[in-house]
């Protein structure tokens, strides 16, 4: 602080402390000697440092002059004395009266340009404004030293603001801020100067930096010496990057003029984006897809980058429309379509029903250390249904077709098929067939021929795909009666998968339940109920899964008797209780069980038991 004597008295307003530093030789015995013999009075620049003193504090201070003038003690007539003079004394021209709240001690000659001393301010010292002056007496003693070093006004002050406190930050909540978003942050620590304080000291100044960016701060409020609140708004284009939070107190006795806290780490979190096929689709126009198409979406920031900065994070998707993670059936039990996983940074899903404006949103949350969740990234899909709701199967029932005589066929026939050992017409066994079959039976090589009991023909779906069928059996029971007792065979589980998955590829599916009719049974019947599911698989996209179009339930129930039992095979024309479609084609819908996909408890197998 440099001030000249020219300003003495200029700002000596009432209630202000005129801190006047007086450097006075107390002895007058050596009138020729003096403690300071340099230039004095106006025009001399001297520096006192520090120049701001806080009540209750002691300071090691110094006065320096640009050119020599201080003399060692040996040349001082008496031990030199320094006075800090308050404004009132100064105004009265009394420069050798110590401020009653100030004690100056340990006055030490350092060099011809510097003296040092200790300033102790009483803890009850009032807040006074700036002024200082120093004077070197020439040994006249008491008041009236003739050699002035320099006098300055309003360059010394006694104020609590002079406390040199370096703030510390102990925590930040949250310690992450979303790019382009305003995040309210609470900084906890010590040594903060509140925004509102009794002495109007400069409040603590927080700052957040990320690389070369000074993050925009608003609503900064130093609530207390231990808490700062503010709103941080990083630039919207910021990537995932580290940030640093600091707080600084202004120092009246600088340099340095700012006492910086420790730097507390934080993170800038980018607003997420959604990509599909390496294109950002969040915020873009609606994307086109088809049912069954694999939809594999990625996001930023990636899981790898999040994991590198946060021990915990979580992702959340919301996907409109009916969607699944996949459908990978086998003959094993239970093939319910898997639900879409909505907690990864990536999304793999299939829409299985069409819809427009299907919104997909994504956000992520990090522990920072409170849970911080990003704004949503949003993408929209228009998913073409490709025939769901209009596709169907038509059923051709053998019992509903006419024979060459123009009469309806009996739905069930007794057919004699080749059986071992000859596997020729010389060795046959009757079978009760839904439809009509000839040629080798099940245990003989060769190719059976004939008319099946029921044929399903698909139509109505888009030609940009193919049909497939899956059949589940609900009921399959066979009852053979004997002269005493009977034998029955029933499904081990229901529904059960018929044959394999899929039952058939293509537009058509065919079936014809049959049972062999051996001796010694007197009657035989079969009750068969199944659901034939129609599926559709896109051929316009890669790696699609089939989507359900619906199912047609159907049945076959017939009975025949063998009057020649137990010795002769003479099975009668079957009596058919039921055959063909049951009801109409049941369109699959999102509300259907398992979204309309067929499910089963395992491959259709049966157990038999006889009571006789």
């Amino acid at each position: 602080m440099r001030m000249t004597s020219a300003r003495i008295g200029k700002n000596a307003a009432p209630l202000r402390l005129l801190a006047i530093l007086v450097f006075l030789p107390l002895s007058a015995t050596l009138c020729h000697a003096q403690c300071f013999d340099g230039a004095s009075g106006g025009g001399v620049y001297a520096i006192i440092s520090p120049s701001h003193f806080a009540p209750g504090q002691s300071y090691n201070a110094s006065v320096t002059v640009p050119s020599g003038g201080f003399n060692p003690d040996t040349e001082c007539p008496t031990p030199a004395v320094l006075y800090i003079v308050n404004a009132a004394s100064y105004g009265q021209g009394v420069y050798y009266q110590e401020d009653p709240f100030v004690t100056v001690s340990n006055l030490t000659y350092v060099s011809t340009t510097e003296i040092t001393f200790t300033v102790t301010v009483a803890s009850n010292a009032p807040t006074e404004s700036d002024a200082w002056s120093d004077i070197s007496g020439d040994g006249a003693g008491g008041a009236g030293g003739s050699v002035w070093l320099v006098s300055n006004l309003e360059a010394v002050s006694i104020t609590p603001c002079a406390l040199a406190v370096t703030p510390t930050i102990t925590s930040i909540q949250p310690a992450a801020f979303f790019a382009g978003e305003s995040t309210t942050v609470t900084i906890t620590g010590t040594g903060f100067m509140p925004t509102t304080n009794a002495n109007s000291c400069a409040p603590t100044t927080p700052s957040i930096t990320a690389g070369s960016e000074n993050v925009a701060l608003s609503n900064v409020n130093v609530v207390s010496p231990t808490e700062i609140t503010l709103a941080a708004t990083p630039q919207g284009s910021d990537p995932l990057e580290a940030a640093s939070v600091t707080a600084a107190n202004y120092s009246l006795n600088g340099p340095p003029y700012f006492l910086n806290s420790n730097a507390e780490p934080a993170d800038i979190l980018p607003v997420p984006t959604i990509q599909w096929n390496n294109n950002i689709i969040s915020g873009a126009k609606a994307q086109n897809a088809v049912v069954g198409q694999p939809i594999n979406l990625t996001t930023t920031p990636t899981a790898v980058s999040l994991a590198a900065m946060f021990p915990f994070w979580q992702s959340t998707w919301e996907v409109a429309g009916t969607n699944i993670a996949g459908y990978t059936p086998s003959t094993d039990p239970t093939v319910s379509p898997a639900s879409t996983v909505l907690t990864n940074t990536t999304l793999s899903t299939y829409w299985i029903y069409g819809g427009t404006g299907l919104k997909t949103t994504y956000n992520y949350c990090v522990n920072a250390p409170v849970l911080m969740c990003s704004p949503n990234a949003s993408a929209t899909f228009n998913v073409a249904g490709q025939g769901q709701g209009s596709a169907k199967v038509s059923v051709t029932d053998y019992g509903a077709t006419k024979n060459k005589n123009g009469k309806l066929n009996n739905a069930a026939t007794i057919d004699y098929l080749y059986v071992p050992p000859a596997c020729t017409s010389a060795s046959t066994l009757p079978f009760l067939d839904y439809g009509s079959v000839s040629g080798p039976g099940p245990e003989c090589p060769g190719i059976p021929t004939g008319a099946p009991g029921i044929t399903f023909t698909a139509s109505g779906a888009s030609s940009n795909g193919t049909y497939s069928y899956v059949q589940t059996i609900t009921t399959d029971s066979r009852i053979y009666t004997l002269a005493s007792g009977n034998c029955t065979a029933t499904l081990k589980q229901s529904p059960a998968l018929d044959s394999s998955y899929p039952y058939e590829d293509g537009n058509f599916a065919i079936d014809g339940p049959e049972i062999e009719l051996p001796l010694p049974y007197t009657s035989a019947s079969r009750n068969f109920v199944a659901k034939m599911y129609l599926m559709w698989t896109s051929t316009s996209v890669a790696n699609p899964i089939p989507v359900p179009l619906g199912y047609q339930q159907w049945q076959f129930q017939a009975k025949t008797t063998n009057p020649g039992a137990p010795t002769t095979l003479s099975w009668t024309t079957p009596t058919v209780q039921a055959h063909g479609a049951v009801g109409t084609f049941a369109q699959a819908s999102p509300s259907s069980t398992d979204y309309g996909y067929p499910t089963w408890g395992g491959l259709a197998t049966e157990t038999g038991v006889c009571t006789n």
Partner: protein
Amino acid sequence: MTKFVKVLIFAILAVVVSASGNFAQTPSAKPSFSLALSAPKTEVALGGDVWIKIQQTNLSDQTISCSAHVGNGVNYGFGYEVRDQHGAVVAKVVRPHPELSASYNFRPCDLRPSQSKTANTLLSRLYEFDQPGEYTIQVSRPDAGNSKGGDVKSNTITISVLPEGEQPSAKPQAASH
């Protein structure tokens, strides 16, 4: 040219023509379809299910039949040959009431040229895999589209039935030799 030379040339030509004619009339040995056999699991616990997968592919330029009787996981359109590790034919499962254990459905089926169809068969329903050891399996089907007739045979695969108490390894398995 002497008469002898003319006769000699005629004789040589006759032999050549005859030979080429015989060659042209040899029936094609090409089967009308192929059978590719595989197994989803090549290690099976004793008493466990033995599944095989048969892919029939139409190699001809005509539509061929893949019709069969099917039921209870078995496609009866194929002949099955199962041998144990000593080469002995494995016995078929004998059930007191086969009519109760086998549910049949007649399944007409066509295969267009180059089209394939896969059939799964639960072979342990038909054959006894009741001893630990290795079993070799081959399937066949009559070839009605082949001028020479006969059966088309698949490749042979091996299934290991583990000793009692042992379970198959967790690693994925697939056999197609």
